[in-house]
């Protein structure tokens, strides 16, 4: 009965657009989307370059990047905490317990996912287009824009995986953000806190929103790949 009551209250909070709930959702989206955007900006070209390059030690680098996809968030949080703390190398930035620190932590977690999935996806595409692009005199970094555009539908999945990793993450943002109410509290850290306090309605409401967001974004990525297949033969 307690669960049913908490669930009903949670739906009510979401439906009433509760200001506290909305502030947490807005910060979560700001942090996660910023991290994914930055990871895309660096990870997509990096993954593409890795897909088309051949150099000694490449296989080792690929294995290392694949392994980094499974980075434990609390370890990343701890490392960034040490770097951003007053005595750390980046202490002068004053980012600790601020949203930029949370963005940095999520960026570090998302970047290997974007690089690895981009590399994998574009390596197949490079096999398909290699001779054609070489015959046009393109090679190395010159083919990167073409490959990124040609792989746009499958790369949406790579970014989605990064978004999923960032939005569901709790350990790293908790350590570097500090879960300060109204400032660095995200959906995941709030869920952890409210559950431990026994405030199930807010935790459930945030959980529902998180699930809904994941569903909407997955549906959008699925739709994009279907549109690609239907209209571009992707």
């Amino acid at each position, binding site marked *: 009965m307690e669960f049913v009551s908490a669930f009903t209250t949670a739906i009510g909070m979401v439906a009433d657009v509760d200001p506290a709930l909305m502030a947490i959702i807005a910060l979560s989206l700001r942090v996660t989307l910023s991290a994914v955007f930055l990871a895309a900006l660096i990870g997509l070209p990096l993954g593409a370059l890795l897909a088309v390059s051949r150099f000694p030690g490449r296989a080792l680098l690929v294995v290392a990047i694949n392994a980094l996809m499974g980075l434990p968030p609390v370890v990343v949080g701890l490392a960034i905490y040490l770097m951003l703390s007053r005595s750390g190398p980046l202490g002068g930035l004053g980012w600790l317990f601020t949203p930029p620190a949370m963005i940095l932590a999520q960026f570090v977690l998302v970047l290997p996912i974007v690089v690895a999935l981009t590399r994998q996806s574009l390596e197949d595409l490079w096999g398909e*287009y290699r001779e054609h692009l070489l*015959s046009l*005199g393109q090679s190395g970094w010159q083919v990167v824009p073409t490959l990124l555009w*040609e792989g746009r539908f499958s790369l949406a999945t790579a970014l989605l995986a990064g978004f999923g990793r960032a939005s569901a993450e709790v350990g790293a943002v908790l350590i570097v953000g500090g879960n300060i109410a109204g400032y660095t509290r995200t959906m995941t850290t709030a869920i952890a806190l409210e559950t431990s306090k026994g405030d199930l309605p807010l935790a459930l409401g945030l959980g529902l929103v998180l699930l809904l967001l994941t569903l909407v974004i997955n549906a959008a990525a699925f739709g994009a790949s279907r549109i*690609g297949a239907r209209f571009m033969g992707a």
Partner: protein
Amino acid sequence: MSVHGPRTILPLLVENLTYEVDGEKLLGPLSLSVNRAEALAIIGPNGAGKSLLLRLCHGLIAPSGGTIRFASAAGSIAAPKRHAMVFQKPVMLRRSARENLIHACRAVGFSHSESLQRSGSALHRFGLASLADRPARLLSGGEQQRLAIARAAALDPEILFLDEPTAHLDPGATRQIEDMLITLKEQGMTLVFATHDLPQARRLAERVVFIHRGQVEEDNTASAFFAGPRSQSGKAFIAGDLLW
């Protein structure tokens, strides 16, 4: 070893070309020349080295030895690249037919406005204007190959290499491709195509280079070759008796 050596008056001059992998010689030493505005068929059985020779000439693979030299007709260099290639299986980007042509033109260095103009002109010239806005990868195999040839032609190359351009096509589509090639040749383009389709070589080529086991076994006019090859392997190939 040099891929682009000193000038020659011939559009393409290949001398002592070899290609080896792990010490195993796959091609050559092989020499041949291509005359301006001629249609040259490279024929031979599967595995003879036809496709390899075209890829070497086009610069997709670095030779192990020998030289490949290109010359340009004085004052006729409108294209940044002197040669283009069409593959057996057309490679289409995930864009419209027109955008595929524009991409190729931009890639070789034409300005955006010139790329637009060249693409439109090539599509119109080869009767593909109605397909311009269709996604290229959703076109039929024959349409894609016609588009691939139009794309290469839009680059205005002096030499067009074609690797078995009709190998997967039905007779109707083959006929359309051959008509395009005849048009290009009449406009002064040099065509070098690999094929194992002897009737096609007979229809299109003025000269035939017969390759067997990576070596030029015979270099002859098409009429003389098909009337009676000089080489024993050429005779066996025409009779359908030549085994690798």
